[in-house]
């Protein structure tokens, strides 16, 4: 590896080491502190009445009986909140022409999805609040639902929001190169349509919020299960017209988020509004049933795709048409068009093809809002691209690995700008593919597959190359007007006894942020890992930052930690130099000591430096002012994103009688730049792969024609369990980004981005002898049997 990294490459460095997470011990002992574990005096609980219809007008709402129920403190409806907040609109200015309607905490006149909150009961306990919800007398007039996104976009379709004129939220067209000519002159054209079902995040800890308003102090404190405390502080201040300084958001432990806990939800805004109204702490914990109809959903896409190729396998052109349904509102503040936007931006981008056309249409409908969920757009873009490549391989009689080999952007071709305009600084796609094929013994597996096929055993091998967008800069959201920070800060302090306290803007969702920061800081300051304490998730105690999203914690937060630690190191050495009458440049930090840079001789302990600075300033030379705290911020600006790359493979067995798929093994080779902690990166990849497997084989929010969710419990909505998934082998290539000194890119979403494509291809590979293909996700046994004509 190359780069100006002396402080992180030292022999005693923790960088690149698989150290376990110190903070995991608390969680293993049952000592986590999630929102529902926080108990405050005068705490009251909220339960919501939600609309039971996909689309309905509120005719009457009588809360008198509910208000008389035991333990009820207040019943709150839209009327009670009028004038106490400003509505929000999920649009961003850089998505030209996008539109959405204002959204409110509670339904005043018309509900637009099954699950939209209408009234809130505040009571002494959640159980009492639910008792009272059942006593609310409400009359609805059911209105025609708008379920199918193509129907929503059909000419003459009634607009869901009359003021918007139609149901088209956003559209984008890309037309690069000479697509028509390439198709006209192609040796081979393949075309296929794909459908991706809605699914959702199913966080083990449901959405949770505890809002506490102290009218005397004028301060709002929000204990929150969130990925982005600083963003939500800004949003609460903005929409409840509070001074920014009056709002504090605290995220202790978060029981899974995956993109679910970074959006503005009406029930959570209502909870804050009630805390402000009543001047006491109010808790809302979504139960599992309401989570399924009120958490954001993701993915609902239908895509038609065409690929033109030459006989030698060169991809000559690609064209896709993507229609996606996002529910009745574009979600605030990130909008609901980013998934579709990323699909059309990413399709085919890892191949050399220069002729690319894409059209995206984003439709309103009466289902829960969809928006960013782990790997946003990547699973779809990868599945469409890679399924078409496999289809083309069959048409051309080429091996799927060989077809990829012939088309990947070469490893020596960077920097590279894709047909859709994405900029790749440096990727390792060819090396990754070759490493994967060797790792899985591709040729051996093909022989095994052939031998078994002869005996009627249908195994499939699926490959998926992909790129992942990480470390986003301000061009992603900030440029469009959202209060979303692409920068993060880290404050690092040397304490009197020689230990180190850091506060960082990036947050801990269990991915290991605190460990990653501690490794970087400990390595830079030459102290033991257990001497470093990292604080996250509190807007009053951490530097401003964006938090956890788009695989940015290590690449951005890690670089801020490195720069902060380097700055503190300079301050320490200046002070030590003054104390020792030595040139600071001749000193270094190692093993908790200030040492001579050249020979490593110990000169003075960090504890002695700390004590002198804080307690014995009288011993310091005149004019020396110790500064044993340093803050640095970092944001990427050279590239809009740091792209990573990888390749996955799935090996599975398909039972043609039942349609069941048994996953046998999964392999991943991925390149997220410099790896700070291989153990944590591998666990991000594996967890991500299994989330991708969920979308590929199991997970689907099934709606009937009236917009009713048919499988809204964890007994009905299938998620991958331990027995459903295989061992996952992960290996790495490291191509650091040159934009930062650390060189790290993101790894949080690569698993989810690539796995569905690998599995879809493996299923279709297993189906090859039957000459049928599956093009709908999730690939359920029913869909396999339907493809086989046996349903």
């Amino acid at each position, binding site marked *: 590896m190359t780069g100006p990294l002396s402080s992180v490459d030292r022999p005693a460095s923790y960088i690149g080491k698989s150290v376990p997470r110190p903070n995991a011990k608390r969680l293993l002992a049952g000592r986590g502190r999630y929102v529902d574990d926080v108990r405050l005096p005068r705490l009251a609980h909220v339960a919501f009445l939600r609309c039971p219809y996909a689309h309905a007008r509120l005719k009457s709402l009588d809360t008198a009986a509910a208000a008389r129920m035991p333990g009820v403190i207040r019943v709150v409806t839209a009327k009670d909140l009028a004038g106490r907040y400003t509505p929000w609109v999920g649009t961003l200015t850089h998505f030209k022409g996008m539109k959405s309607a204002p959204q409110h905490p509670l339904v005043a006149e018309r509900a637009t999805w099954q699950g939209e909150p209408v009234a809130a009961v505040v009571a002494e306990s959640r159980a009492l609040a639910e008792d009272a919800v059942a006593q609310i007398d409400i009359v609805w007039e059911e209105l025609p639902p708008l379920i199918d996104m193509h129907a929503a976009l059909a000419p003459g379709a009634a607009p869901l929001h009359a003021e918007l004129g139609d149901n088209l939220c956003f559209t984008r067209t890309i037309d690069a190169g000479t697509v028509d000519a390439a198709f006209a002159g192609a040796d081979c054209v393949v075309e296929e349509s794909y459908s991706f079902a809605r699914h959702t995040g199913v966080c083990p800890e449901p959405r949770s919020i505890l809002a506490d308003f102290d009218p005397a102090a004028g301060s709002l404190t929000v204990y929150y299960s969130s990925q982005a405390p600083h963003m939500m502080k800004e949003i609460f201040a903005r929409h409840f017209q509070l001074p920014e300084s009056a709002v504090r958001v605290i995220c202790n432990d978060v029981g899974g988020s995956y993109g679910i806990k970074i959006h503005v939800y009406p029930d959570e805004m209502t909870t804050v509004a009630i805390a402000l109204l009543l001047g006491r702490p109010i808790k809302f914990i979504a139960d599992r049933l309401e989570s399924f109809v009120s958490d954001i959903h993701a993915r609902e896409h239908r895509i038609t795709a065409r690929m033109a190729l030459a006989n030698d396998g060169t991809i000559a052109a690609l064209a896709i048409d993507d229609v996606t349904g996002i529910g009745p509102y574009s979600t605030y503040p990130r909008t609901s068009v980013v998934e579709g936007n990323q699909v059309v931006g990413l399709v085919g981008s890892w191949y050399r093809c220069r002729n690319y056309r894409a059209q995206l249409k984003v439709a309103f409908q009466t289902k829960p809002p969809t928006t960013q969920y782990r790997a946003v757009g990547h699973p779809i873009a990868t599945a469409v691209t890679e399924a078409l490549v496999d289809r083309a391989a069959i048409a051309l009689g080429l091996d799927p690995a060989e077809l990829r080999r012939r088309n990947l952007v070469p490893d020596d071709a960077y920097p590279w700008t894709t047909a859709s305009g994405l900029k790749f600084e440096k990727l390792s796609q060819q090396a990754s593919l070759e490493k994967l094929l060797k790792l899985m013994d591709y040729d051996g597996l093909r022989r095994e597959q052939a031998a078994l096929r002869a005996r009627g055993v249908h195994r499939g091998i699926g490959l998926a190359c992909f790129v992942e967008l990480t470390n986003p800069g301000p061009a992603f959201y900030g440029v469009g007007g959202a209060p979303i920070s692409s920068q993060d800060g880290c404050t690092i302090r040397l304490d009197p006894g020689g230990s180190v306290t850091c506060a960082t803007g990036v947050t801990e969702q269990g991915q290991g942020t605190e460990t990653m920061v501690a490794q970087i800081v400990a390595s830079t300051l030459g102290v033991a890992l257990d001497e470093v304490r990292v604080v996250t998730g509190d807007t009053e105690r951490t530097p401003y930052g964006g938090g956890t999203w788009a695989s940015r914690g290590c690449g951005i937060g890690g670089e801020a930690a490195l720069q902060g630690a380097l700055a503190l190191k300079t301050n320490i050495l200046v002070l030590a130099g003054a104390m020792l009458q030595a040139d600071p440049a001749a000193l270094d930090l190692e093993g908790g000591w200030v040492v001579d840079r050249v020979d490593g001789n110990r000169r003075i302990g960090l504890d002695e430096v700390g004590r002198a600075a804080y307690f014995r300033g009288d011993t310091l030379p005149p004019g020396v002012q110790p500064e044993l705290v340093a803050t640095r911020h970092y944001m990427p600006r050279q590239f809009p994103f740091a792209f990573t790359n990888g390749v996955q493979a799935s090996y599975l067995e398909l039972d043609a009688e039942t349609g069941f798929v048994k996953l046998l093994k999964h392999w991943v080779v991925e390149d997220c730049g410099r790896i700070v902690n291989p153990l944590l990166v591998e666990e991000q990849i594996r967890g991500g792969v299994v989330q991708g497997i969920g979308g590929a084989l199991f997970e689907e929010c099934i709606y009937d024609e009236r917009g009713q969710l048919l499988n809204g419990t964890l*007994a009905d909505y299938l998620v991958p369990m331990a*027995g459903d998934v295989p061992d996952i082998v992960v290996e790495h290539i490291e191509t650091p980004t040159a934009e930062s000194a650390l060189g790290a890119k993101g790894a949080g979403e690569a698993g989810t981005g690539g796995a569905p494509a690998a599995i879809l291809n493996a299923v279709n590979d297993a189906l090859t002898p039957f000459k049928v293909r599956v093009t709908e996700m999730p690939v359920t046994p029913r869909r396999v049997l339907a493809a086989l004509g046996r349903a």
Partner: protein
Amino acid sequence: MSETVTIRLTVNGTAVERDVQPRLNLVDFLRDELGLTGTHWSCEHGACGACTVRVDGDIVRGCLVFAVQLDGASIETIEGLTESGALAGLQAAFHARNAVQCGFCTAGMLLTADTLLRRDPNPRRETIRAALSANYCRCTGYHAIVDAVADAARERAKRA
């Protein structure tokens, strides 16, 4: 709903007496009455295992049991099993393998794994996967958890 029933039981070795409503289930009892917040709500349908606790030596889903059913019972939760050291080997193995991310499923996962190892001290990998299929984890992808349980089994065998 105001009528209560008096129950007397043992929780983590301590005798407990409470007047509880018949509708109060075990998870709320542990969390709200006793402050044992290491046991979590998640699916509320007996499908995910986040609320797994030990009752009279067997693991049960806390969300599917009412407190009034437990008069005379002995309950052990993650807090008590941690303090007694009963799960120490599994906890160390989970820590070493990073078989815990957000931590919300972890208590249930540990109790289920412990039950498996007491029944089958040397489980095959597929057996571990089958046993853990009672518990939902969204973060890890299970591979590290399976590794950790296998490691803990080897350690227990060494000590035996």
